[in-house]
């Protein structure tokens, strides 16, 4: 009872301090609005506006049709170039793809000779290289088939295949992108706020003052966890409602309340990490570096950039200890696939377990560092 009062009071104190730093408040607002919007919108379709150039040595009706087939938004209209310009264009990164259509291509196709088109791919453009090359092959295949079928009729396929996209029929990038952007802001802000608040109390000597009062390290820590967690939770709820559902028009499938429960557990873990860093770092500059070192793997290896299953086994196992891994999975399931509690309870449990471990070790460090 006494403890609870202290925790609430100290938490309110944290909220008041935050409010006194208008630049920080502005940055938080920016992070949860413009930053989410721009990073969700920036992820292009794959391929999206890919640049392609064609060396057309055939100049036939068919080669003309091929060129017309590359259309926006997937490709910017192809440029006709000559052989010499091809290498220079690829070297400078001007063209990601170049096609070389050989002479007499149309004649050979109709003659059943299976002529070969050369496709050069800039493999340094890693995300477009593979899927783009697949698209281009598909387009060439389709166009020649349609072209030929006007002359020949015996082209019925023995088996047909349809590919349907569940949960996101048009594969809108912004759906997933907005979600990961929200998660990134949550993780980043909560770690920075708690870690830096602790260092600031130490640099300004106020933490020592607290310790001569009937207040325990546990209360100090819980106060920071709830207050900073609350700030981030409210910011993310607003961002979800107004930016993700509003501006970006992402049709949220599942229960937002369930998502926020997950977010609260995630925050329990990340705020504890923040406090842990606050006890490890000796000064703000060290804390700044530690935060970068933690944020990057938490984001990149959590499965929000590339699928988890494709990572090396060791990394997959290690990343099970990271809260973001579970939170990304949970957020995806709830918001995009409409999953309910019956489905996501393992992630919730995982977050709770991770949060508890981080919380207890941060508490132990805090007790130790205050001695």
């Amino acid at each position, binding site marked *: 009872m006494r403890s609870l009062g202290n925790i609430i009071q100290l938490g309110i104190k944290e909220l008041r301090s935050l409010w006194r730093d208008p630049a920080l408040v502005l940055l938080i607002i920016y992070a949860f609005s413009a930053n989410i919007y721009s990073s969700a919108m*920036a992820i292009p379709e794959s*391929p999206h506006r890919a640049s392609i150039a064609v060396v057309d040595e055939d100049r036939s009706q068919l080669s003309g049709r091929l060129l017309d087939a590359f259309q926006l938004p997937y490709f910017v209209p192809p440029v006709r170039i000559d052989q010499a310009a091809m290498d220079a264009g690829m070297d400078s990164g001007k063209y990601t793809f170049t096609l070389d259509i050989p002479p007499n291509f149309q004649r050979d196709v109709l003659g059943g000779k299976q002529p070969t088109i050369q496709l050069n791919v800039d493999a340094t453009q890693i995300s477009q290289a593979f899927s783009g090359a697949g698209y281009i092959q598909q387009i060439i295949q389709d166009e020649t088939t349609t072209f030929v079928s006007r002359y020949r009729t015996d082209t019925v396929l023995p088996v047909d295949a349809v590919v349907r996209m569940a949960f996101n029929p048009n594969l809108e990038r912004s759906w997933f992108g907005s979600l990961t952007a929200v998660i990134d802001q949550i993780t980043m802000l909560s770690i920075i706020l708690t870690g830096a608040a602790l260092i600031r109390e130490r640099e300004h000597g106020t933490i020592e003052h607290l310790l001569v009062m009937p207040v325990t390290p546990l209360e100090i820590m819980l106060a920071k966890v709830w207050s900073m967690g609350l700030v981030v939770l409210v910011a993310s709820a607003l961002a979800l409602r107004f930016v993700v559902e509003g501006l970006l028009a992402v049709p949220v499938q599942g229960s937002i309340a369930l998502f926020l429960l997950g977010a609260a557990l995630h925050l329990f873990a990340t705020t504890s990490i923040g406090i842990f860093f606050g006890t490890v770092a000796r000064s703000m500059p060290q804390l700044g570096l530690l935060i970068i070192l933690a944020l990057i793997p938490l984001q990149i290896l959590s499965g929000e950039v590339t699928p988890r299953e494709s990572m090396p086994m060791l990394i997959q196992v290690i990343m099970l200890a990271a809260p973001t891994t579970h939170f990304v999975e949970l957020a995806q399931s709830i918001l995009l696939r409409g999953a309910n509690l019956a489905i996501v309870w393992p992630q919730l449990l995982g977050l709770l377990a991770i949060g508890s471990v981080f919380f207890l070790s941060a508490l132990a460090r805090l007790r130790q560092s205050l001695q």
Partner: protein
Amino acid sequence: MSAIADIKQITLRYGKTCALDDLTLSLPSGQMVGLIGPDGVGKSSLLALIAGARKLQEGQLQVLDGDMRDAAHRRRVCPRIAYMPQGLGKNLYATLSVRENLDFFGRLFNQGSQEREQRIALLLASTGLTDFIERPAGKLSGGMKQKLGLCCALIHDPDLLILDEPTTGVDPLSRSQFWDLIGRIREGRPGMSVLIASSYMDEAQRFDHLVVMDDGKALACGSPDELLQRTGTSDLEQAFVALLPEEKRQNHEKLVIPPRTADGEIAIEAHDLTRRFGDFTAVDKVNFRIERGEIFGFLGSNGCGKSTTMKMLTGLLPSSSGEASLFGKPVDPKDINTRKRVGYMSQAFSLYSELTVRQNLNLHARLFQLAAGYRDERVAELIETFNLAEVADSLPMSVPLGVRQRLSLAVAVIHKPEILILDEPTSGVDPIARDAFWALLVKLSRDDGVTIFISTHFMNEAERCDRMSLMHAGKVLASDTPEALRLERGKDTLEEAFIDWLREASDPQATPDAEAASPTPQVVSSTARLPRFSLRRLMSYARRETIELRRDPIRGLLALLGSVFLMFIMGYGINLDVEDLTFAVLDNDRTTYSERYIQNLSGSRYFVERPPLVSHADLEQRMREGSISLALEIPPNFGRDLLRGDTPQVAYWVDGAMPMRADTLRGYAQGIHLNYLRSLAAEQPYTVSMEFSKVATRYRYNPDVKSLPAMVPAVIPILLMLIPAMLTALAVVREKELGSIINFYVTPVTRLEFLLGKQLPYILLGFINFLTLLLLAVLVFKVPVKGSLPTLLLAGLVYITCATGVGLFMSSLLKSQIAAIFGTAIVTIVPAVQFSGLLHPVSSMEGFGAIIGELYPTTHFLIISRGVFSKALGLSELYPFFIPMLLAIPALTLFSVLGLNKQEK
């Protein structure tokens, strides 16, 4: 007599508070001029204005015969002014040694190495600091810090020396040494004017000319004798009170301390109390017994262990050996109940500066669990008793120091403790406020029986204690009533007795040294005309930043090892070869034909098969769970329709939640289907070939289409943005938060020199970082540099300059360290990772992200890095990508310069 400073109708406001109110005043030159007056009457503000550290709002100010509004004049006279701000060691750099601090200031004033050495030697000799030349400033005692601060101020032979409460918090011995030193310096430089704010009236006696200030106005000016005559008083303390306006004087009564009736109960006891930090013994076998209701004084030189002893009594610090007990019970830091009986006030203000006075009181009332009904009453009572009503809704930092101390005391007694431990509570507080403060203490002691354990540097306060201890170098030298102590040494005043004790006990080396060095701190060469832009001043900041970086090796190490760590994470973690995807099959046909189709899929190395699906509902559920990312549905009668030539249709369901993976899955599904068709065609000659043309795909620059060679050249630019930017981000804002920015305000260094000087060391560190990453790429990741290495190195240098520029911009713009960390994370992580072409080419982006991507330096360095690493290119092909970065550097620098003020607003 000419004026050193001519003040005409100056008004200065901080928000609603008025610090200086239409002040008109002329300060004579060539004299010691003292500003005296209660706290918060505008003394510090006036000094900061004269020093040029603070921006003028209204009125005219002429200093050294020129207008201080005129930037050109400020630049001209700033080498002739020296300013020592309030606060122990405020203008010093704690991690730098004594010599390095002095050297830094010498360089700022453009002195050559020989001149600097001479000056440093002379200044140190005359202050007795020579033996401590290699000691970091942060580890000096308060008195030594102030002497060093003075040396730093005097290094350039100023014509005007401005000292803001230079001896506050300094022990009597050091204080008398300090004033002797000033006296000797003035003998050597008779023309020098000295302007001092002080709250010690005995010091004011030494000054030639005094200005008594109150409420932003000057009440009286004149020599000390004139003031005494005018007021008809015998000492300045009384004269000061007499000069105050009527209503302020009313509250002031001569403090009378009623005698104490001892009851013999022991409240605080220390027995052989000892505390060691490593080899250093801060407190050495200290013993005392303090009775209940006693006021016990604790005196001693700076750093003698007073604060440490007090911290052990409160349980903040565990003792190394010996015992401390409160109310007969040993001190137990874990015992929350003892804390409720003790009130503690630490030396530095440690309440929350973000909360108002009332909010601070309320918070502590709640933390001490005052009953809900009683809480408001108690807060109101304290506001009344401690005279805080006027400032109840102000922030602590906007009220005068004395008021702040009253607030701290109010907080310390809010729960009516039985013991009060007060660590220099009246440091920097003016005489009237100190008397009021003591009146409160006396009331607590005599009326409420509160035991008070107090440390102080003021002798008149020590005289008010029932008993006191003299402490030096961790040991108690003597303990008794003040009167007995004075008599023991046979001196006229307690101060003399005290100094006598200290001299005897202190290191016999240090003191004589200070006196022996004869006072001619005049150096041969005078500073040449100061140039508009000086490389030496720039390098001075660069050197200092480098030394600070070197003193904090963890930071540099974190930067280097951290980037290596992140390179591994990103190199291996960002793997676009999507593999081990999970799938399951809903086979409604269950014939050899359908099984054959399925084999096509399960045989692929990209897929891992999960148990078959039983129904559509099952398919939906498993998809929703995320346990499969691809489902294949084979219709009933698949085999029959295939044989009949009826073209059966299989359906693939792809989990579209993660579009990137879904795209790859779609490609794989189409490929698998095509494969199946081919294998059908091969064994059934009657069906026609499906392919009319072939596509030969060549993956250039990375023929094996491996992620690693594609990732490594792209990861380097990302890391070289994140880490150098974060390193630089705190460079300026940290000085703002910790106060040393004042040196930038009052020395001739320009904004450009300051910023570039700060940036240089980080560029160097960033470049070392870059080389480490290059070696790692080539040796560990086996990604060779195919193109021109010099081009890459040059581009790296330009790019790192941009990256540190980004951090510096955030640092000069923002005011708190938290905001700077957060801001830098925002402006680096998202643009570098998402908008700069790491995963998606910038040409394919749209909107805001595309604009950022086009402008952001990472985009351009990424192209250069990929060009040199993978495409074997050199400068002739890549020079266009240097141009945007080369333009970004001056732009960023310009923004940083504009974001930084040369004066405090």
